[in-house]
């Protein structure tokens, strides 16, 4: 068994440096690496470029690293629901690159899978296509998109084992498996860390080869951003 288990988030982020590029899994506040984000805030590392579908809310998720001005640039598909973000962006304190969500996902996967570039129809004819190569396939225009690069990828899983295998739950899966593939160092925090052999090898979402460090997270808040319910019958 290749050793990957670390004690906690603090140990998991060792080696993070100013101006690095980091990926963060999650969609909205669902499936975000809460412990790793806290540890990065405590560490104080600065000028990060963060690749994440969203930017959290004012006081949770990546919003915490915006509060402390640790983020220089965000690469995201949707950054609403965050007033501080908007303020920092409009004042020029924060660089922002907006990427179509499917392209964001595919650029993460491509990075992990050794595909340096691919064609997609998304964004053709829009601001997103500016400066990008256009080519027609099957009578439809496509643009060329490049794989991302990331020094660290921080992901959150439901269950993990000591071999680094991960299983996600529900829609908290989202970008996590793709970013896990893409990080030079991938840090996985899990709600439950189990001995190797505890998980059915047929059910692994992220094989351990993609995960360099794994730990069992603590005090998960798992905040709900938009609670919608039906009344009890």
């Amino acid at each position: 068994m290749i050793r990957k288990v670390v004690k906690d988030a603090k140990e998991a982020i060792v080696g993070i440096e100013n101006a690095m590029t980091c990926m963060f899994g999650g969609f909205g506040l669902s499936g975000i690496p809460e412990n790793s984000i806290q540890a990065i805030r405590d560490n104080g590392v600065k000028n990060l470029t963060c690749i994440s579908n969203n930017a959290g809310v004012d006081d949770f998720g990546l919003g915490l690293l915006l509060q402390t001005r640790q983020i220089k640039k965000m690469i995201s598909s949707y950054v609403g629901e965050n007033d501080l973000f908007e303020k920092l962006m409009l004042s020029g304190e924060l660089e922002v690159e907006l990427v179509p969500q499917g392209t964001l996902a595919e650029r993460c996967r491509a990075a992990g899978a050794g595909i340096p570039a691919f064609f997609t129809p998304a964004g053709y004819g829009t601001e997103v296509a500016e400066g990008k190569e256009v080519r027609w396939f099957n009578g439809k225009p496509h643009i060329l998109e490049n794989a991302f690069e990331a020094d660290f990828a921080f992901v959150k899983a439901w269950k993990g084992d000591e071999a680094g295998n991960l299983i996600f739950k529900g829609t908290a899966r989202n970008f996590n498996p793709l970013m896990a593939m893409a990080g030079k160092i991938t840090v996985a925090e899990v709600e439950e860390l189990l001995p190797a052999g505890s998980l059915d090898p047929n059910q692994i979402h992220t094989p351990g080869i993609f995960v360099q460090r794994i730990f069992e997270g603590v005090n998960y808040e798992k905040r709900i951003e938009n609670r919608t319910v039906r009344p009890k019958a």
Partner: protein
Amino acid sequence: MALDKTGIARRIAQEMKDGFYVNLGIGIPTLVANYIPEGISIEFQSENGILGMGPFPIEGTEDPDLINAGKQTITALPGAAFFDSAMSFGMIRGQHVHMTVLGAMEVAQNGDIANWKIPGKMVKGMGGAMDLVASADNIIVAMMHTNRAGESKLLTKCTLPITGVSCVRKVVTDLAVLDITPQGFELREVAPGISVEDVRNATEGKLIVGDNVREMEI
């Protein structure tokens, strides 16, 4: 009388065909799920990673690990599947999703759509909208015919940054149902009590009115 949002959703629901996989955007489109005609089977995809999306959960059963693309808590129906975002957009780009219903700020008569950015004012991002409109064969826009200032949202040309080129097929508004054709917005139906003239007055882009305009049945 002009339709309300529910009316727009009801009318769009009539476009669903048996066996469709459908992606519904945030806002009016989300309401469409409530009005699927009896006897046809539809499955809803949400681009954050679920197929077989069900209604909102009963109070007290919300799960933070189970949300839709609007970040609302949801449920999963029997036969549902969860997947990652790359597979989700594989379904979308690969045209496995048969119909997409989206809101819009502007639609142009050539089918261009703008719904993601107001320069200097609102920059929330495109989310999955650019992937959706660039991919699906069947894009329906659900929106009010005019904005709050009373200006037409059906234009000769979009004034806002566009989300996609020549992609919208049909627009359903509070006033009318219109198809995007090579000639422009072709009026198909008017809301009950709305005249062709009302639609013409509210439409800045080129409006084509044939002989067979009928009143919506909703």
